[in-house]
């Protein structure tokens, strides 16, 4: 099933990148699912966690737990330092100019809701339009609508790439904001975000980049991208759930009103009026997910310790191998076939509904997602009501992709019409 070219590149990758060693760091990967070795191919939904992350969270609760910015005692001081160290780690991970531009939130969804509330709704003009794309996740559509803006989509081409001519035309109309995924969660397309930011800049349109799917795969540099907002979730980048990041340019953070009110985000409170702490604390009301931030710190530290170029080459190899294996199976149709793609592949198998396919694969211990992957408008554009999706991480193997292929062939035998 492996073409000679793939075999050669597979040997190269093995030399440069030891996937077996990486797998040993993820305890869940040696567990069983329905009595078979777990084959986890739903990484776009959430990633598994390395021992470093699990240990960091456990250590925090065992020996470091206290509230932050409150106590003068040493334990609280240490928790505060850990929280701020995590902020600096994030700033480094995304190339931010200052850690003051990093706001901790629950995840990408909350980051977008924060911008929708504080940047769009609270500073809104009548008939605001937020430009999105046809491939956006619901989390990058619905918050803008709730903020009272109209969402207009940049269309995609047949290969699942953005129509840049249309993008320029639509940006020229002066929307309030462009909100675009760095990487599509359903079809893996890597959008030309730097180019889009450049065009948007010409028309004075700020840009929010949803980096949820980019963070585990790409090196991120918010200053090189020249965007205004960037957000991602900890749990998709080998960290814990419930912690995520909004990065925003200082000029936006200082002019944006608070998102939620509460403790820790204030300067002075009276019954007449309240003044607020400077950013980023102004946007972090209440006791945050401190353990989550220490876990995220450990996750980013773990990822940065990998040879990122070797990881990128290995993931490209996984992506191309999956495309090859799936293409060889009669009746498989792939969605997202452009050259710039993360290892995320949506597909359908002729005559087998994606939900049945996912259930039959599950019986073999293989986890794939079936449905619309929170991208109903994209599926409408693709002309299907649902797809199956296999999404890979650096710990997946070509052997697992072979198992996926064999599972598909078995499913077609059971159900194929």
């Amino acid at each position, binding site marked *: 099933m492996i073409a000679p070219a793939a075999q050669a590149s597979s040997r190269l990758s093995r030399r440069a990148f030891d996937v077996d060693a990486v797998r040993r760091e993820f305890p869940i990967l040696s567990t069983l699912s*329905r009595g078979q070795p777990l084959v986890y191919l739903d990484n776009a939904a959430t990633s598994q966690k390395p021992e470093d992350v699990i240990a960091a969270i456990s250590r925090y609760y065992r020996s470091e737990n206290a509230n932050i910015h409150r106590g003068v005692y040493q334990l609280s001081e240490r928790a505060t330092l850990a929280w701020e160290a995590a902020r600096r780690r994030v700033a480094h991970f995304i190339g931010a100019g200052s850690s003051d531009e990093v706001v901790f939130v629950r995840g990408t969804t909350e980051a977008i809701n924060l911008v929708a509330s504080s940047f769009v709704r609270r500073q809104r003009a009548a008939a605001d339009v937020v430009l999105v794309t046809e491939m956006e996740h619901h989390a990058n559509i619905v918050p803008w609508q709730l903020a009272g803006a109209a969402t207009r989509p940049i269309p995609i081409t047949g290969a699942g790439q953005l129509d840049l001519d249309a993008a320029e035309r639509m940006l020229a109309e002066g929307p309030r904001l462009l909100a675009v995924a760095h990487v599509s969660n359903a079809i893996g397309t890597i959008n030309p975000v730097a180019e889009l930011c450049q065009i948007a800049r010409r028309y004075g349109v700020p840009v929010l980049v949803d980096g949820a799917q980019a963070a585990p795969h790409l090196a991120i540099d918010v200053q090189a991208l020249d965007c205004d907002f960037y957000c991602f979730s900890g749990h998709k980048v080998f960290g814990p759930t419930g912690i995520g990041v909004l990065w925003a340019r200082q000029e936006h953070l200082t002019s944006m009103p608070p998102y939620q009110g509460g403790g820790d985000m204030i300067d002075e409170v009276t019954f007449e009026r309240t003044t607020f702490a400077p950013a980023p604390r102004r946007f972090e009301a209440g006791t945050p997910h401190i353990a989550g931030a220490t876990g995220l710190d450990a996750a980013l530290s773990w990822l940065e310790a990998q040879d990122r170029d070797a990881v990128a080459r290995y993931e490209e190899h996984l992506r191309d191998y999956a495309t090859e294996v799936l293409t060889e199976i009669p009746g498989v149709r792939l969605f997202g076939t452009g050259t710039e793609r993360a290892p995320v592949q949506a597909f359908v198998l002729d005559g087998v*509904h*994606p*939900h*049945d396919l996912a*259930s*039959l694969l*599950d*019986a073999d211990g293989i986890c794939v997602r*079936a*449905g*619309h992957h929170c991208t*109903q408008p994209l*599926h409408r554009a693709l002309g299907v*009501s*649902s797809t199956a999706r296999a999404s890979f991480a650096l710990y997946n193997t070509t052997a697992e992709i072979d198992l996926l292929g064999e599972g598909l062939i078995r499913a077609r035998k*059971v*159900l194929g*019409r």
Partner: protein
Amino acid sequence: MSTLAELYQSVIVEHDRSPRNYRALAAPSHHAEGRNPLCGDEVSVELRVGAGGMIEEIAFQGHGCAISRASASMMTAALQGKSVGEARELFDRFHALVTGTAAEGDIGKLAVFRGVAEYPMRVKCATLAWHAMKTALDPGAQ
């Protein structure tokens, strides 16, 4: 092989491939649609209920997975000629069967859906058409 794989090899696959009563009725007295927002599956169920409360005709249309299609097909076959009261009672027994919440009584051919109880994520697929049927008979009740 798991229970679900066995399930797929049985009568369910046959009903998925050749669903019974897959059509629109000329003059339905009751109808309702069901949607599963999780997967986008849709089913429309139509009934013609006679004066004595008998289901004279029942049919369905829509798109969905094998479990939901087979379940809709077998539901229409099971309810043809039954009374509205019997349909409501069968709904409860089928629901109990696929959620594994009650000892099963005699449920006839529908017993092939027993394995669904082991896959809670698929219960909605198996009950989509049944909920539409119930809504058609008792609008506003659910």
